[in-house]
């Protein structure tokens, strides 16, 4: 493959020096930076293949790319107002802490720990079912609800509906 390139590259480049409507410097710069849209890239690559001058121009940009970007990033530094490297993870941690604190505050304000306690649930259930059951202990209520009445030879539904 290399021998073919050596043999025909000069001939081809002499033929390919004439091109129509060369793209702007900005377009070549976008391509060199890897920021060209796919359709734009295809068009630019087509052109570079057929235009020796633009191929040379692109080669210059590609050669300078990494050095220039590194130099500019280094020059910008933290004083430039750009986000430092730790900022994204710091923001995420702060957001998580905020959400956690808010959740705790809501729980404290609404008294949530008591609202789902076993005793309250049983008392409400008991009051709805039978006024007489209000004074019963939690154990009794649970037994009544889940089969204690059967053990005491009491029909299951009579007690529940007061009949």
């Amino acid at each position, binding site marked *: *493959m290399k021998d*073919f*390139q050596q043999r*025909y*590259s000069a*001939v*081809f*480049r*002499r*033929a*390919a020096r*004439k*091109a*129509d*409507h*060369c793209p*702007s*410097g*900005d377009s*070549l*710069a*976008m391509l*060199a*930076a890897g920021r060209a849209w*796919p359709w734009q*890239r295809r068009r630019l*690559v*087509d052109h*570079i*293949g*057929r235009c*020796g*001058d633009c*191929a*040379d*121009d692109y*080669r*210059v*940009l*590609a*050669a*300078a790319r990494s*050095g*220039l*970007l590194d*130099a*500019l*990033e*280094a*020059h*910008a530094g933290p004083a*430039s*107002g*750009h986000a430092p490297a730790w900022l994204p993870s710091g923001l995420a941690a702060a957001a998580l802490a905020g959400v956690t604190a808010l959740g705790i505050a809501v729980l404290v304000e609404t008294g949530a720990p008591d609202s789902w306690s076993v005793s309250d649930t049983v008392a409400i259930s008991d009051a709805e079912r039978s006024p007489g059951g209000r004074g019963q202990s939690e154990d009794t209520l649970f037994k009544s609800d889940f089969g204690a009445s059967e053990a005491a030879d009491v029909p299951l539904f009579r007690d529940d509906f007061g009949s």
Partner: protein
Amino acid sequence: MSPGPEFDELWRTLAPHVRAAVSRHRSRDLALGADDLVQEVRIRVWNVFTGDRNSRLKPSYYYKVVNSAIIDALRSHRGTLAHSVRAETSAGEAEENEVALVEQIGNDDRGPDALFAEQEQRARLLAAIERLPADRRRAVTLFLQGFTVPEIAEFFGCDRNRAHNLTYRGVRALKEWMSEET
């Protein structure tokens, strides 16, 4: 107006890379030397630096500015200023080519036979390239422009194996066609 220490500091970081890039340019008809081109890029960056203070420390913006400045400087000093105007002269192109060929014969040590042979070879090569499927044609033209397989892969946004296959198959077909017609 004096550039000021901030610009000096910025330019100190950019200049070596700009000079290295411009020095690699291999255009035959570039009128100016690398130092002159670097100076032109510096002036352009300085103009942007003083005129747009809000974005002066954005690396991506300055990267674009520097690249555009490099390309514009190269193009403005490329012997043929008609680089982007050539398309407009297509009507007189054939005549222009003949004149250019006569001038070339006069200036070339190889003699008219060698030049005519090369012109014929060039025409056959271009015709053979046109026969290739689109992807192989793209790969081969980039290869003949002097780009390597990894560079072609970058152009195509594909892996090196695919770029190598496209180039290899295109070159193989061209070799066959060129030898058939010889």
